[in-house]
């Protein structure tokens, strides 16, 4: 309760400036607080990578099955490796990682292949199955799930569908990589016991091809994906897979995107499924198939020259020499 006083013009101006200063101060504090919202210290976790269980006489197996019946092709491809029970135990949490980076069906894992994989995995009766994805930067993952029919498959088999871009549980995990010493991903990914990568066989404008190894970029937050492109995409793909190596890869080569990619390209129908416990081996074979479909000469040599494959093999993620890989091919019809 102040009695009224004579206020001089100078005092009034002083109060005005004071008010503006307070406002600017509040604005700055708020701005800095926004920047610091991410916790300063995130504990760096470790993850043990399993050895490839689908080997014969020390050689990783790669199965190639051709057939119009997708469900049968996927089952046969996995059985040729030794069967799903070699990998999954009854108390495992299984993460299925299809490629749902885009909203057009040509660029993503076909829902039929995902459904076939789910049925095979269910035979091993794991504790829990989840499907997770973080779409390409600039795209909405949930929209992709719905537009491509992946959401319907998850609903039909009653499997938890996770839009990683909506998750706030970011964790950091140590890698054995050259460039990236730790990787940011999500708690939902870290907690999985078994990772099954279900990529689509495609060309890629920057990475040359995108198959199992590149598909693992879908477990990253958008900021981490950006970092990959800023540093060195090929090296970072290899580094990522040193800690988050898929335990089983089932490659959807029913329709292959050739010539260009990863969003649009020339689609070639081949009705093929590839499977392997070694992502480097199956990516090598897959890349060779793409080059063959494009009619390029020396397809295997071209595949050998893909930088991310070379780096990944060098870091021990998998085997790249074709004579150290056992290929099993089968035609169904």
């Amino acid at each position: 309760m102040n009695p009224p006083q004579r206020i001089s013009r100078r005092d009034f101006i002083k109060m005005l400036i004071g008010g503006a200063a307070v406002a600017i101060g509040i604005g700055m504090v708020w701005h800095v607080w926004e920047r610091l919202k991410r916790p300063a210290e995130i504990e760096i976790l470790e993850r043990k990578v399993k050895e490839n269980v689908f080997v014969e006489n020390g050689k990783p197996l790669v199965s190639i099955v051709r057939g119009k019946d997708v469900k049968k092709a996927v089952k046969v491809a996995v059985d040729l490796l030794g069967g799903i029970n070699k990998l999954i135990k009854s108390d495992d949490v299984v993460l299925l990682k299809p490629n749902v980076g885009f909203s057009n069906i040509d660029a993503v894992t076909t829902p039929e292949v995902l459904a076939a994989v789910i049925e095979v995995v269910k035979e091993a009766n794991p504790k829990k199955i989840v499907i997770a994805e973080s779409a390409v930067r600039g795209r909405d993952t949930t929209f992709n799930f719905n537009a491509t029919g992946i959401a319907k498959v998850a609903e039909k088999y009653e499997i938890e569908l996770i839009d990683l871009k909506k998750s706030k549980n970011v964790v950091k995990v140590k890698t054995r990589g050259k460039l990236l010493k730790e990787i940011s991903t999500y708690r939902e990914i870290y907690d999985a016991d078994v990772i099954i990568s279900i990529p689509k066989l495609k060309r890629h404008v920057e990475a040359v091809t995108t198959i199992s190894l590149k598909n693992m970029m879908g477990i990253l937050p958008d900021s981490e994906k950006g970092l990959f492109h800023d540093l060195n995409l090929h090296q970072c793909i290899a580094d990522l897979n040193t800690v988050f190596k898929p335990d089983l890869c089932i490659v959807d080569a029913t329709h292959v995107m050739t010539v260009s990619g990863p969003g649009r390209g020339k689609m070639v129908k081949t009705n093929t499924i590839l499977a392997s416990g070694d992502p480097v081996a199956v990516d090598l074979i897959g890349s060779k198939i793409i080059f063959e479909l494009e009619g390029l000469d020396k397809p295997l040599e071209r595949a050998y020259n893909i930088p991310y494959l070379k780096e990944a093999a060098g870091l021990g993620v998998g085997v790249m020499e074709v004579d150290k890989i056992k290929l099993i091919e089968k035609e169904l019809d």
Partner: protein
Amino acid sequence: MIRLNRREFIKIIVASVVMGTLAKLFFRLPKESKVVRPPGAIVEEEFLNKCIRCGKCVAACSTDGSGTLETCGYLDGLSLVGTPKVNPIKAPCEALFGKCEGVLPCVKACPTKALVWVEPHQIKLGSVEWIKERCIAFRKGGCLVCYETCPVDGAISVKEIIVERHGKFIKVKVPEFNPDVCIGCGRCVNACPAAPKALVLTSKGARRVIPRD
């Protein structure tokens, strides 16, 4: 205590008349839009007249905070305050090839028809501009995320150019932008990993509706 007498009042009345005349002389509505408007926006002059700055379009776009629309502040220009704008850095516009296609909640929410319904093929919010010096592809290579994420065939393509790096001439792949095909959704801007962004969404070439009433 300050007492106001008749003389003061005359001063106030004169001041108001002067203010009014000055406002009339100097207050101009911009004809071209500096900011990118929501889909279905009518031509800018009419838009600024019709828009009552209620913010309903912004609320409809961002029910969970994930939408692109924001209200203009004083830095966008006094006559634009409170009107909606697209901010691709926050999120791209989903009106085409996205979750709002065929739905357009912003248009549905507008009470004064400053935003009107448009068919998907008519939507063009603007076009994108490339800032070469900031682009990772141009500076060191290894990034074409804008090309990857662009949903429109032909809006962004890849070009191989020869640049000089450390005394050697090398080939790098850089993006090439076609503003005529671009729909201005801003997905490329949102996706660009460069900091600061190498892409800017502008209102150039925006298709605005001519109101007929």
